[in-house]
C-alpha cells in the first residue's frame, strides 16, 4: 500500500474530479484562497447593486423599472448565496462584511465606475454581466462543492441580466441619432473596464497557477478575456456600434480577434482605491450598514423576548396560538 500524505491525497481527489465538501480535510491555503475569492465575489455582487440602483427611480418606463428592480434584487441574492458558501469554510459573516466596509477586502473594480446615462444600464447588463457570466460558467465546475453549486444557481439567473441589457442597447441603437450616440458613448466607457474584469495578464497574476492546480479556476484570465472578446464583437456589430479599439481585428491564423493593450495603469489605480467612485461606493455600504443597525438589533431583541415567553409558559403559548 502506498502511503500518501494528506496534501497528496487531497490533490489526488482534485485530479480525479471529486468535489471537496465543507467538512473534508483541505490545506489551509486552499481554505484561505477560497474564503478570499468567494467573499470578494460576494462583495462584488453587493456593491454591484449600487451603480444600477442609481437608475431604478429614473428608468424610462414601468417595464424597464420592473426588470431593473428584479435584476438588482437577483444581485443581492447572489451576494447572499456566496456569503453562505464562504461560511461553510468557517468564515464569519459579520467579519466578512466588516472587511468590505473597512476597505480591507476587495471587490470587482468595474463597480467603481459611474453610471451617467440610462444607456449605461444597457451596457452593464450586456458587457459587465456578460463578462461575469464567462467567469461564472467556468466556476460552476470549481472543485469546492458549495461554491460550484452557488455558481450553478447564479448562472441560471444571470442570462436574463445580459439579455435585458442587450435589449436596452438594441432599442437605443435603433432609436434616434441622439439615442444611438448615447449607446455608443456607453460602449466607449464600459468596454475597457469590462476587459479589465478578467484581472491582470496571466504573467502578472499572483494566484492563478495554484488556483488552476486546485481546479478552483479552469481557465486563465487571458483565455477568458479572449473568449469574451470573440463572442462580444459580433454582438456589437449587430448593434451597429463601434468597439473603441483601433487594434481590434480578426486574426485568421489564430481564429481569434486580436485586440489592443489594456491600460494597466488605470487598472491598478482603480484596484488601489483611486477609481472615480471607490469612496462613494464604500460610503454607501457603510451608511446602509449603520442605518440598518437598529433593525438588526430590534429583530434580535424580539426573538429573545419570544424565546423568554416560551420558557415561561409553553402551554399559554400553545393556547394563544
Amino acid at each position: 500500500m502506498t502511503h500518501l500524505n494528506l496534501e497528496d491525497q487531497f490533490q489526488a481527489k482534485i485530479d480525479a474530479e471529486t468535489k471537496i465538501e465543507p467538512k473534508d480535510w483541505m490545506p489551509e491555503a486552499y481554505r484561505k484562497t477560497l474564503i478570499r475569492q468567494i467573499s470578494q465575489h460576494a462583495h462584488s455582487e453587493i456593491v454591484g447593486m449600487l451603480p444600477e440602483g442609481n437608475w431604478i427611480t429614473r428608468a424610462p418606463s414601468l417595464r424597464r423599472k420592473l426588470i431593473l428592480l428584479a435584476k438588482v434584487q437577483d444581485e443581492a441574492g447572489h451576494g447572499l448565496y456566496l456569503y453562505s458558501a464562504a461560511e461553510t469554510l468557517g468564515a464569519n459573516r459579520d467579519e466578512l462584511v466588516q472587511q468590505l466596509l473597512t476597505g480591507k477586502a476587495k471587490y470587482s473594480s468595474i463597480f467603481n465606475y459611474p453610471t451617467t446615462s440610462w444607456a449605461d444600464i444597457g451596457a452593464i447588463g450586456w458587457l459587465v454581466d456578460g463578462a461575469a457570466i464567462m467567469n461564472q460558467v467556468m466556476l460552476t465546475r470549481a472543485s469546492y462543492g458549495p461554491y460550484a453549486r452557488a455558481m450553478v444557481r447564479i448562472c441560471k439567473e444571470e442570462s436574463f441580466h445580459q439579455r435585458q441589457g442587450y435589449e436596452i442597447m438594441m432599442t437605443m441603437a435603433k432609436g434616434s441619432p441622439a439615442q444611438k450616440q448615447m449607446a455608443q458613448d456607453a460602449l466607449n466607457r464600459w468596454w475597457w473596464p469590462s476587459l479589465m474584469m478578467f484581472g491582470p495578464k496571466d504573467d502578472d497574476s499572483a494566484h492563478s497557477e495554484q488556483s488552476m492546480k486546485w481546479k478552483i479556476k479552469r481557465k486563465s484570465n487571458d483565455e477568458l478575456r479572449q473568449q469574451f472578446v470573440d463572442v462580444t464583437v459580433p454582438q456589437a456589430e449587430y448593434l451597429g456600434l463601434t468597439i473603441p479599439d483601433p487594434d481590434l481585428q480578426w486574426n485568421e491564423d489564430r481564429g481569434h480577434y486580436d485586440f489592443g493593450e489594456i491600460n494597466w495603469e488605470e487598472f491598478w489605480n482603480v484596484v488601489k482605491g483611486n477609481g472615480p467612485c471607490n469612496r462613494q461606493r464604500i460610503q454607501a455600504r457603510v451608511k446602509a450598514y449603520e442605518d440598518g443597525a437598529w433593525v438588526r438589533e430590534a429583530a434580535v431583541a424580539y426573538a429573545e423576548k419570544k424565546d423568554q415567553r416560551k420558557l415561561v409558559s409553553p402551554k399559554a403559548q400553545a393556547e394563544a396560538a
Partner: protein
Amino acid sequence: MKKDWPLWEVFIRSKSGLSHKHVGSLHATDEVMAIENARDVYTRRNEGVSIWVVESKYITASDPDDSDPFFEPAKDKVYRHPTFYDVPDEIKHM
C-alpha cells in the same frame, strides 16, 4: 450590543411528489424570518412549493474523515443488487 443572527439551513420541495432538497443557508433571528428570507433568497422564480428551515446547529452529520470504514459494511454486499443474479434468457420478464 451586537449579536450574530443564527444560521439556518434551507430545504425546498420543488414540486409536489418530490422530496425537500438542501439548497443553501441564511441568517435569521427566528423561524418566521428564516422561512420568509428563504422564500426571497431561494425561490424568486417559483423554485418551490414548500420550504423547511432548520437551525444549522441542530444538524448532526457523519464524519467525513471516517466515511470509508463507516460505509464499509455496505460495500461487500453485492448480493443486495439485482444485477448479482443471472436470469436465464428464456425468462423474459423478471
